[in-house]
């Protein structure tokens, strides 16, 4: 006989890491939740473990030409090109809205040079209501032939070190999966002073319209996200958890509570939900409810008792 779930005590879902206190381990992934406001009609932002913003750069960025998105089998390609309002407009126009909520606000940012990274971090450092920064290192380093910072451990170490110097708030470094050995970049991030690591960003991919013989997105190559990539994300999260001492946030293809649990079980302290928000703007709410039910059903009183319990 199944226990009557309603009468059992609610499980504790709060998690803590890098000085952040989250009501639960669920947050949106950057770039899939706008600046929070877009989702306010659909869910209560106070229910989220944290709010993660679209990636910000020093100056406003126009992004790529269209088409920018294409559906693939159980996934999607995007090449939005990091369109954003720029850090100053964000602070001025978007933060007042986000400050209303008691969920911590994590601001995602990027740059195309070390200096840009440093400068954006410095400007966000003094903004009240910003709980932590998430640094996207999947960007080309325009001063070094456009090699993506996150694919070169030395460049990653240097740029993170530079940001660390200008930032006193907690720093989460978000890794790109397009590398031979994710443990090396993770270690570089830890050594450079990151407080936490989040992964994965999108896998680079491409798709062709076989009738027009054109790439299905204008930028030719885009980032692959969605449930099809989850096994790669779980594998990398597992590897990174085994490698670094700092906390890890799992991202990649989470659509349901059971998907989030895969990451928690391999040792992620929290997870981010990306593409699922597009499929259903209530996704985070549904995952939260189901996560709670799962804990009750499995007799998990505190979600922390479940984190890192992979049986090998």
């Amino acid at each position, binding site marked *: 006989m199944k226990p009557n779930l309603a009468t059992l005590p609610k499980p504790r879902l709060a998690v803590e890491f890098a000085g952040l206190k989250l009501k639960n381990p669920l947050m949106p992934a950057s*770039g*899939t*939740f*706008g600046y929070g406001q*877009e*989702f306010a*009609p*659909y*869910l*209560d932002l106070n229910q989220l473990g944290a709010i993660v913003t679209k990636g910000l750069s020093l100056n*406003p*960025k*126009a*992004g790529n*030409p*269209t*088409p*920018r*998105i*294409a*559906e693939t*089998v*159980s*996934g*999607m390609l*995007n090449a*939005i090109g990091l*369109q954003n309002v720029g850090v100053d407009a964000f602070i001025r126009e978007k933060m007042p809205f986000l400050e209303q909520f008691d969920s911590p606000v994590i601001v995602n940012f990027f740059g195309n040079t070390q200096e840009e990274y440093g400068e954006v971090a410095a400007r966000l450092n003094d903004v009240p209501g910003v709980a932590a920064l998430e640094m996207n290192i999947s960007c080309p380093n325009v001063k070094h032939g456009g090699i993506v910072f996150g694919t070169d451990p030395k460049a990653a170490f240097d740029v993170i070190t530079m940001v660390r110097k200008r930032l006193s708030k907690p720093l989460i470094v978000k890794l790109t999966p397009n590398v031979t050995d994710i443990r090396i970049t993770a270690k570089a991030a830890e050594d450079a002073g990151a407080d936490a690591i989040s992964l994965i960003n999108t896998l680079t991919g491409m798709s062709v*319209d076989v*009738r*027009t013989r*054109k790439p299905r997105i*204008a930028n030719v190559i885009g980032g692959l996200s*969605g*449930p099809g990539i989850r096994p790669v994300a779980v594998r990398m999260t597992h590897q990174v958890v085994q490698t670094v001492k700092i906390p890890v946030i799992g991202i990649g293809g989470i659509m349901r509570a059971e998907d989030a649990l895969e990451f928690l079980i391999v040792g992620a302290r929290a997870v981010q939900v990306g*593409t699922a*928000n*597009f*499929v*259903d*703007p*209530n996704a985070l709410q549904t995952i939260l409810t189901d996560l709670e039910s799962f804990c009750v059903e499995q007799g998990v009183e505190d979600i922390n008792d479940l984190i890192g319990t992979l049986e090998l």
Partner: protein
Amino acid sequence: MRSEEKKHKMKNLQTIVLSNQEISPGYFRMRILAPGYKGTAHPGQFVMFRVRRSLPPLLRRPFGIFQIGSLPADCEGMPEKEFIELIYKVVGSGTEVMRELHHGDRIELLGPLGRGFEIDDVAGDKILVGGGIGLVPLYMLADSLADRSRTRLLIGGRSREDIITVTEFERLGVTSHVTTEDGSLGEEGLITRILERKLDKYPKAKVYSCGPMPMLRAVEAICSARKVALQVSLEALMACGVGACLGCVVKGREHSEQNPDYLCTCRQGPVFHSHELDWDRLEKSAEQGKSS
């Protein structure tokens, strides 16, 4: 008056298909149980449609709302059954799955979404120009106009199969003019020829249009040459429908690299005043998105 964002929490509506019929080869009309749409959805708004959880396609597909209505309740004392109707053309993987849906199948709807048509004088001369499936959002628009005897529907398509639901417009009191490229129904040729004729006659008419990009481009050229007010409903590839993914953007009139002025089709549109858009760059990027 434009549709306002609702203040209460919007939910993804989990509902069922009431009927799904092929009304012309490749064109389907689907009626969906949709409590809450009546009185809240505005002409030109759309829904994001999803077949049952866990089935492909992954992303929802956007469809204009053709019509809103209600059926008598199943039994006394129960509320009447509100529904919406979509009309869709089967073009790819998503619509292939949709065509197989039957009465009672579970689906999900997000909406009503976006900005619909702005109607400042409900009684003046109106010309509605639709191309093929582009006629969908024009029906609720026509229905919302006060003096429909002053409303003309111009509808063009490749062939007679592409001309749908015209009699329903006529039942509203609207006069319709049909062209087909192969001459199989109405006049042979493009609908823009009729538009010019009508504007000669009603030079103060307001124009509302929805259809393929080359048609919209031609309609815009005609209207801007004559300084006639034009609103267009655009299509774009969409992932979220709520302004978050930035996949559906079009360039605004003031757009430049330094001062990006992108507009989300899903949120600032799908209906735009033609002067809000950068028509030179619109056509190019839209064509990249379409397969032949």
